[in-house]
């Protein structure tokens, strides 16, 4: 098993215990913390491979923990949020968290998100990525659908490549804008909406019911492989 180390932070002991047992059963090493302060200390002493972070914590909030961690580490952070915490969730993502699941989450969803986060963006070095009936040849900047060449503008290709190498990971509007258009465009989220819509028309079988480029309301977009869900 992978043996990667996950630090779980939640003030609810029952959730902490259930997650501890479950993640160990899934082959991870698990550390736990009940407060944001304890989490920061533990992450500094023994840096984990990923952090599972509850948003609502006594004392330092999840968002503050994410912000402080980002000052010195880019370890993946998965946020546990709840319905009603949308604003807090978005500010945690803005503060540097990578993804989220909504309580009460299923463990398949949690494990899938963790896997996507632990598979670092840079890890995908193969020149060709295949998702459903889409084949992306990164080195040639060419995209095929059912074997037929799809014509993409340079920005559309950059966007698709960003999604593909981060398969399964949530990409916030801000991240997408920064990676594809550059820092100066970080707040122009309408660019993302327009380009994602265009891209969907070219790669989705039914652009009105997207299955590959899915929207995460209020947060961003995620590329998923519908065959592997």
């Amino acid at each position: 098993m992978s043996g990667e180390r996950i630090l779980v932070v939640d003030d609810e002991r029952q959730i902490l215990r259930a997650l501890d047992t479950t993640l160990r059963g899934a082959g991870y090493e698990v550390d736990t913390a009940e407060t944001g302060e304890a989490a920061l200390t533990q992450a500094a002493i023994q840096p984990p491979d990923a952090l599972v972070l509850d948003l609502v914590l006594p004392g330092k909030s999840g968002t503050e923990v994410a912000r402080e961690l980002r000052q010195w580490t880019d370890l993946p952070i998965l946020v546990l949020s709840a319905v009603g915490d949308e604003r807090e969730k978005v500010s945690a993502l803005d503060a540097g968290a990578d993804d989220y699941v909504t309580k009460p989450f299923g463990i398949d969803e949690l494990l899938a998100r963790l896997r996507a986060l632990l598979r670092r963006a840079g890890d995908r070095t193969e020149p060709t990525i295949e998702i459903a009936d889409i084949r992306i040849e990164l080195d040639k900047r060419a995209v095929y659908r059912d074997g037929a060449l799809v014509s993409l503008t340079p920005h559309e290709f950059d966007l698709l490549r960003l999604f593909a190498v981060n398969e399964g990971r949530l990409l916030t509007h801000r991240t997408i804008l920064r990676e594809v258009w550059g820092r100066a465009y970080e707040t122009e989220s309408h660019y993302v909406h327009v380009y994602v819509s265009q891209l969907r028309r070219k790669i989705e079988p039914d652009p009105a019911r997207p299955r590959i480029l899915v929207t995460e309301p209020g947060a961003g977009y995620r590329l998923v492989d519908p065959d592997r869900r």
Partner: protein
Amino acid sequence: MRRALIAVTTSLAAVATVTGLIFAFRSGVPVLSLGVLYIFAVLPVAIVWGRPYAVMTAIASMLAFNFFFLPPRHTLQLQDSANWFALAVYLVTAVVVSDLAARSRRRAAEAEQREREEALLAELSIALLHGQDVALELDRAAPEIASTLGAERVRVELDPEQRAGEGATFPLTTGPRRVGTLYTEGSLDSDAAIRRFLPALASLLAVAVDREQFQRDALQAEHLRLSDATKTAILRAVSHDLRSPLTAIRVAAESLLSPAVHLDEEARRQQLETVRTESRRLDRLVENLLDLSRLQAGAATPRRELVSVDELVGQALAEVPHDEDQIDVVLPADVPLVEVDAVQLERTLVNLLDNALRFTAPGRRVAIEVATSGGDVVISVSDGGPGIAEQELDRVFEPFTHVGADDGRRGAGLGLAIARGFAESNGGRIWVDPAAGGGARFSVALPRSAVSLGVET
């Protein structure tokens, strides 16, 4: 009647006095020129008693002068026609002077009346515009209004409907708007006062009523805003407090089913244990929410019966999951009885114990203690927690309030509100004070039943 009698008597006395004086002076002075002295009888009567008496006095003077002094004496006949003229002058003088006097008297009275009305209106405007309740201030001012208007009793109603009643009613209107009604008993001194006073009172009332309405509206808006804030707090609390146990249950249950998760025997047992304890926690939370909504809807009518306090404490302890060395129980030597709804009182005690266990530091103990004090049975639950700051003692029983519990031990904020609700609906009192060891001590006092079990001690 009395007034008239006094007036007649004084008038006649005045005439008699002047007649006596003329009789005394008549040797030195021509008698006809002494007739003018009767003016001194007519004038005071005119000033004090008014025209009818003045005329009467003038006629009486004339007759007396004629009878006693004018020839032929001791008859009412006159020889000289010049004497007729003198008598006519007395009469005219009497009438004119009495009219003048009456008018000035009326003016003075009117001025005084106006002054009283103005003073009353000023007083009323202060009372009505600064008082809390317009209707109440009107009741308070009613005797003053009555005495100013010269009525025996008045009542001012803000009710725009005119109700039939004894005595006279006067509508209070400003413009087309009817503000209220003035009801009077007994006759009124002057219609002019009514005509002057009522419009002023009406417009004052209109302002006061409007002001009261604005105040009520503002209060209501504030109330709505607060209840909105409460609803938001409830939604947040419920969403968080229901979701936490649900999350633990779902994670534990799915880990048992998932092919991606491999659990050994101990881990499986642990996950099942989580499912069980968290389901019970959810159940308690739902029960508490129902209890609270029943209490707030006033639908929690207690079904009282005689129960022993031992029984109540025992039932509550059985309901609260705990290890025996976590809770000390101290019962009195005798067995006090109380007349309460056993199920509701058990909810009170369960919530107090739950709360105490949650806040008690590891290694320290919770104590539940029963004592009798006067006519009461007092059940106290002391915890080994951090205690409650003095300024927050009042707030702990409010629903959805978390006092000083920002360290992961907070519950839904329902338990203490429910404990208080059921204690009070059963005729009990509940309060909190510092416990001996630094924690908090919650106490419930219930009236001890007069019935005793007759156990020898």
